[in-house]
C-alpha cells in the first residue's frame, strides 16, 4: 500500500536517501584511498530503512543505532558536516572526534551515540522509552538492530520488558541476511528472525519490504502512532541488503552473484526514483539536479572535514566523567 504523501515530503525523502548514498560512497572511496582513518560499516543499499523509519520523527523523539549508523544519523538530523568531521576524528565532529564511525550521534537531535556492541542498544532503548513514559513527554524511540542482534540475550530481555511495561519503542530489525559474513540462515532456524519472534513477547511484529521506502514509511507511521498513543511496542523486520561488505577488507566473497544481482536490481533509490517519475511527481532532470547538488554538499563536507582542526591532546583524558553541559 502506498501512502498518500505530498510532493514536498516525497522529494524530501528522496533527498535524504541520496544524501546517505552519496555520503557512504564518498566514505568508501576516501577509505580505499587511505585518506580516512579507522574502520567502516556502511549502510549503502539500506537507505529506505533509515529514511522510511525516521523522516516523520520529531526532533525530540529518540533514535538508537548500531555499528552501521550513518544512514540512521543523517536521517535523524545529525548534520552532514559533523558526521564527516567525526569520520576524520576532528574536533568539530558530532562526538568531538572521540566517538568515531561506530558511535556517531547527537543527543540534541535525539540521536543517541551509536552502539557498537551488537544488541547493546536494545535495553538502553527500553530505558529511554521508560523515561519518555515516566516523564509523560509523549515521545517515542526507534531502535535499530541487525539480524544478528536477534540472537543476543539483550534482545530477549529488552523485548520482554518493553512488552510488559507497554513502552513507546519501535524495534526495527534491518535483516540484510548476513551477520558480518555469516548467513543468518546458518545461525537461526526461523526466517523472520525478529518479526517471527514477536508473538513470544506478546508484541505485534510485521515483515516489511525494506527496499521500498514507502512501505517502510507506512509501517513506521502505524507503529509510531501506536507507541505515541500509549499502545506499546512494535517489532518491524525490514528485509534489505547491504551493497557493500560488512566492514573494511570485506569483498563479500561469501555471497553468490545471483543473490547479489537480484538485490542490486531492487536498489531502493532506483525503485523510489522510478516511482517518482512514473507517478509524475518529478522528472529525470529535477532528480539529477538534486543528486548533483547533494554530491556537491558531500564533497564540500569532505573538504571542510579535511581542513578542520584535530581535537587538542587534552581531550584524550576528558569526559570520562561528566564535566557539565558544554557549548
Amino acid at each position: 500500500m502506498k501512502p498518500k504523501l505530498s510532493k514536498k515530503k516525497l522529494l524530501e525523502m528522496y533527498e535524504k536517501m541520496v544524501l546517505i548514498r552519496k555520503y557512504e560512497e564518498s566514505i568508501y572511496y576516501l577509505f580505499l584511498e587511505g585518506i580516512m582513518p579507522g574502520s567502516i560499516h556502511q549502510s549503502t543499499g539500506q537507505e529506505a530503512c533509515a529514511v522510511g523509519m525516521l523522516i516523520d520523527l520529531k526532533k525530540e523523539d529518540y533514535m538508537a543505532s548500531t555499528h552501521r549508523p550513518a544512514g540512521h544519523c543523517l536521517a535523524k538530523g545529525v548534520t552532514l558536516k559533523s558526521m564527516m568531521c567525526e569520520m576524520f576524528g576532528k574536533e568539530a565532529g558530532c562526538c568531538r572526534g572521540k566517538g568515531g564511525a561506530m558511535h556517531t550521534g547527537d543527543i540534541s537531535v535525539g540521536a543517541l551515540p551509536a552502539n557498537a556492541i551488537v544488541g547493546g542498544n536494545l535495553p538502553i532503548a527500553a530505558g529511554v522509552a521508560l523515561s519518555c513514559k515516566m516523564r509523560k513527554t509523549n515521545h517515542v524511540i526507534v531502535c535499530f538492530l541487525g539480524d544478528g542482534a536477534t540472537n543476543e540475550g539483550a534482545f530477549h530481555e529488552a523485548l520482554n520488558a518493553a512488552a510488559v511495561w507497554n513502552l513507546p519503542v519501535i524495534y526495527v530489525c534491518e535483516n540484510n541476511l548476513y551477520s558480518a559474513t555469516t548467513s543468518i540462515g546458518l545461525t537461526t532456524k526461523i526466517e523472520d528472525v525478529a518479526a517471527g519472534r514477536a508473538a513470544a513477547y506478546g508484541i505485534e511484529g510485521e515483515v516489511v519490504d525494506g527496499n521500498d521506502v514507502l512501505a517502510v514509511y507506512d509501517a513506521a507511521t502505524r507503529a509510531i502512532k501506536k507507541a505515541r498513543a500509549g499502545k506499546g511496542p512494535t517489532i518491524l523486520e525490514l528485509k534489505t541488503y547491504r551493497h557493500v561488505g560488512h566492514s573494511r577488507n570485506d569483498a563479500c566473497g561469501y555471497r553468490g552473484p545471483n543473490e547479489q544481482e537480484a538485490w542490486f536490481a531492487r536498489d531502493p533509490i532506483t525503485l523510489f526514483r522510478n516511482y517518482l517519475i512514473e507517478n509524475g511527481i518529478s522528472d529525470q532532470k529535477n532528480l539529477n539536479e538534486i543528486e548533483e547538488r547533494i554530491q556537491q554538499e558531500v564533497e564540500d563536507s569532505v573538504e571542510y572535514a579535511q581542513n578542520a582542526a584535530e581535537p587538542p591532546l587534552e581531550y584524550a583524558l576528558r569526559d570520562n566523567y561528566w564535566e557539565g553541559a558544554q557549548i
Partner: protein
Amino acid sequence: MAVMGIADALRIGIIEEMRADESVFCLGEDIDIENGMGGAFTVTRGLTKEFGPERVINTPISEILIAGAAVGAAMTGMRPIADLQYGDFLFCMMDQLVNQAAKMCYMSGGTVKVPMVMRAPCGATNRGAQHAQSFEGFFTHVPGLKVICPSTPYDAKGMIRQAIQDDNPVIVFEHKLLYGGLRHEEGAIQTLGEVPEDGYVIPFGKAAVRQEGTDMTIVANLLMSYKAQEAAAMAEKDGIRCEVIDPRSLVPFDYETVEQSVKKTGRLMIIHEDVYTNGWGAQLSSHFAEKCIYDLDAPIVRIATPDTSIPFAPNLENHVIPSKERIYDEIIKLAKL
C-alpha cells in the same frame, strides 16, 4: 537524630532523594512486591506505599535489561537507582556497565551524561561461591565508573544521596553482614549508628579516619574496616597504636589522607575481602611504594582473601576470609619489622 542500621539509612536516603526530585526512581528484582522483602536485604521495603509502582519498578529477572534500562533512562533525564539481589549478578550485566554506562559520556565527546546508581550487596555469608564475592577491584579498573563502599549508617545515607545526585554511574557496594536490617545474617556486625535527619551528603574521595594512631596505618573497607578496628583494639594492649582509615569511596580515592597517615606512621597495611591478586589493595600498595618509599620503615603488607572462590562449608569460609585474629597477627609482625 535517629539511631538505625545501614539498610534503614540507605532507605531513608533514597526516600529523601525521591521526595526532592521526581526524576529519581528505583528499579530492580523483587523490590516492590507487597509483603515481599524489599530487594534481597530490605532496603527498598515499603517504598511503593509512598511512591507507587510507577517509581518503584519491579523488573523481570533480566540483569542486562536492568542495567541497560537504567543507562537509557539516565541518558534522557531520569536518575535511576538500580537494585541487584546479589552483587555477583553484576557480571550478567557487564556490557551495560562497562561498555555502555562507563563510556557513554566519553564516546559522545562529553555531551551525554549517565546519572545512575547501581546497588550491589557483596561479601561472603555462607551462601556459596556465586552469592559471596567482593569484587570492588574489578570496577575500579573501569574509567567512567565511580565505586563507593559505605560501612556505617551515617555514611550510607550521606553517600547514597551523593550517588543519586552524582551525574555519573556510581556502583554502591553494600556488605551483607553490615546491613543491620530485619533479615538475620549469621556473623553480622551490629552497625547501629546515629543518622542526622537533615539532607547532608558525603562527597566522594574523602576517607574517614576510624581510629587515630601513630605506629601503623591500616586501610580497610566495608566489613574489614570493622575487623581492622577489632584487631587494632587487641594490638593496643600490646602497646601498638594503629591508625585505621576507611576509604569509603574507591573511585575517586583519597590518596592524600592515607599519604599523610603513612608519613606519620611509616607503616602501611591494606585489608580487603576482595581476593589478593589485583584487588584494589594492589593499586594502593603500588601507589604508595612509588610515592612514599622513603617514608616507609617496613614493607607494605596486604591482607586479603586468598586467590580462591568462596567455599560453602562455614569452617572453610571462615578460613579464607580475613579474620581479626589473622589481622592481629599481621599487625604484631609488621610492628616488629
